[in-house]
């Protein structure tokens, strides 16, 4: 019984770790998409941020400067997306795709030229990356059987980005639902002309939303390079940006369901590594690839209306051209 409990806690801890970049990226995508801008460029921001974090931390020796660099690069990429899709009314899907491809080429080129390690950044020592944070109360709780294990393995002992992600979810929910900025942001994604008529600059609001996206994706990238591994390696984002986009759609563009979708996708990822080669009674061995594709299959089913109904922001993807 107690063994099963320990197993569940360790599964949950792994789920939280793997869900962190998904949660941050999906929340980032939420700001952008709720403001009416399609962002399939999450993958590129994540990869660019991870490289910036790894490179800056390797050069300066500070994970905090790495985090700052990741956020700056990610915001810069978001602003390019904004320049194309807000200022120049360009095709948002094409812009996002272009940035994904551009970043994929750029980080590899720069990594090879600057660090000469086949597209990776140098390995980071313990002080140069984010390591587990021991919360102060854990020592006192450790003796209590169940609570002690939960406190030690789930609540404490995570890295800074995990706590930032845990903070970001309620914060994003409150900003979107309870602040003037959030109200305007949601309105501009549904009916930009009404927002414009109320005397609020549509373009500026959307740029602000994109900066929020940039910050969140930047933290997610830093998590990949500085917390989940000790440095950046080639192809590090590995489709997580697209997975986060799927989670965002699966969560119907709302914070709490998106969080659940991210946790579910991360859990599927954890199970996929645990189930490798395991023969289940009555079913046989499940191909790993099947579990890997589960999030994508579910998202397609959702979009086709078989699992609930996805209702995207009404004005999403349409450039707003002021006419007076």
């Amino acid at each position, binding site marked *: 019984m107690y063994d099963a409990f320990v197993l569940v806690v360790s599964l949950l801890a792994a789920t939280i770790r793997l869900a962190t970049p998904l949660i941050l990226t999906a929340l980032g995508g939420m700001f952008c998409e709720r403001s009416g801008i399609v962002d399939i460029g999450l993958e590129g921001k994540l990869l660019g941020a991870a490289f910036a974090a790894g490179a800056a931390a390797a050069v300066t020796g500070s994970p905090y400067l790495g985090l700052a660099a990741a956020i700056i690069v990610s915001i810069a990429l978001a602003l390019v997306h904004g320049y194309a899709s807000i200022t120049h009314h360009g*095709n948002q899907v*094409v812009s996002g*795709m272009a940035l994904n*491809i551009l*970043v994929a080429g750029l980080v590899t080129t720069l990594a090879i030229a600057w660090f000469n390690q086949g597209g990776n950044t140098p390995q980071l020592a313990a002080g140069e990356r984010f390591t587990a944070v021991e919360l102060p109360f854990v020592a006192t709780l450790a003796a209590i059987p169940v609570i002690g294990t939960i406190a030690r393995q789930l609540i404490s002992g995570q890295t800074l980005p995990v706590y930032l992600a845990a903070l970001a979810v309620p914060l994003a929910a409150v900003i979107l639902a309870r602040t003037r900025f959030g109200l305007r942001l949601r309105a501009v994604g549904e009916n930009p002309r009404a927002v414009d008529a109320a005397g609020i600059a549509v373009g500026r609001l959307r740029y602000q939303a994109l900066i929020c996206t940039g910050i969140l994706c930047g933290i997610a990238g830093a998590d990949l390079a500085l917390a989940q591994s000790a440095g950046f390696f080639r192809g590090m984002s590995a489709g997580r940006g697209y997975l986060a*986009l799927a989670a965002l*759609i699966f969560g119907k563009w709302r914070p709490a369901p998106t969080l659940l979708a991210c946790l579910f996708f991360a859990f599927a990822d954890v199970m996929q590594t645990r189930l490798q080669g395991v023969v289940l009674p009555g079913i046989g061995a499940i191909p790993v690839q099947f579990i890997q594709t589960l999030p994508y299959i579910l998202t397609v089913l959702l*979009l086709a209306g078989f699992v609930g109904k*996805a209702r995207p922001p009404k004005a999403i993807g349409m450039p707003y051209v002021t006419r007076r």
Partner: protein
Amino acid sequence: MNSDLPPWADFALLPLINLIAALALSGLVILAVGQDPLAALGVLVDGAIGSGEAIGFTLYYATTFMFTGLAVAIPFHAGLFNIGGEGQAMLGGIGVTFVCLALGGWPLWLVLPLALLAAVACGAAWAFIPAWARARRGSHVVITTIMFNFIAASLLTWLLVDVLIAPGQSAPESSGFARSVWLPAMHEMLGALGIAVSATPLNFAFFLALAAGVLVWLFIWHTPWGYEVRVVGHGEAAARYGGIDVERVIIISLCLGGACAGLAAINDVMGAQHRLLLNFTAESGFIGIAVALMGRNHPLGIALAAMLFGALYQGGSELSFEIPTLQREIIIVIEGLVILFCGALENVFRFRLARLLPAAIPALR
């Protein structure tokens, strides 16, 4: 603002300006890593067209990109953005492989039509599900085709690791095809005519790609179905009002796109590698986006853009030999920038040109 340009500016000058902008920015990247952009360009051009062998490789890559470019272009005429070329090409490869492995030893003239059919059917089938979901259930085709790329990649991995893997092999690749079902290579065909060229992977599929381009041109501009596709692309509501079955057009155009992507596998799998490899598509589905955007979704433009990207791809692989700090990835930078300038930032130069041209050329006023 009036953004109409004369056709020559729209189809030649504008893509050229966008290409120059993309190359100039890539040059800045090369400068940033401490290399000489002009020297790199020299190596690139020489590596792409400097020898018979280089030209062969360039045209081999161009063949694949023509197919994947058409895969983006046909749905684009119906106003649909097909990002699923990568997955559709993978499915095409799976279909071609099953035919070639099952019919090993059969004569090529019998196998080729069946392989073509398999490539077309598998690619189209992979596009059909997102197409159906878009037409009947209104789901966003960009997202579903992205998802289908991942599903296809997993399917391919599973097939190669668990099903098709060659006996006694550890690398995830299928058994080699029988010699009789290989597509003839260009150097063999020209050799039979008494013309000696260097051995390259360029093969018979090059002609199939050109033929596909002509067929697509005929379809889009010279058939009633193509007319319906273009009407839907201009406005679904108007098309529906005009009595066009919009759902059918969506499904047909996306499936034709998928079929073209599937045919790319004929070039790579049946024409060059003669076995199914794990990453045989090598992102060519995404290069197809750049090719279609730069070629303005016209088969002739796509053929030219595909040759340009074929040249970049081949020249890029030479870069790493000549300038060690520069790798082929710089080509991906150029590809991304071309998509950015030709697609998303298209209006930047278009509006400027529309304002400048009449001032410069009195006849246009």
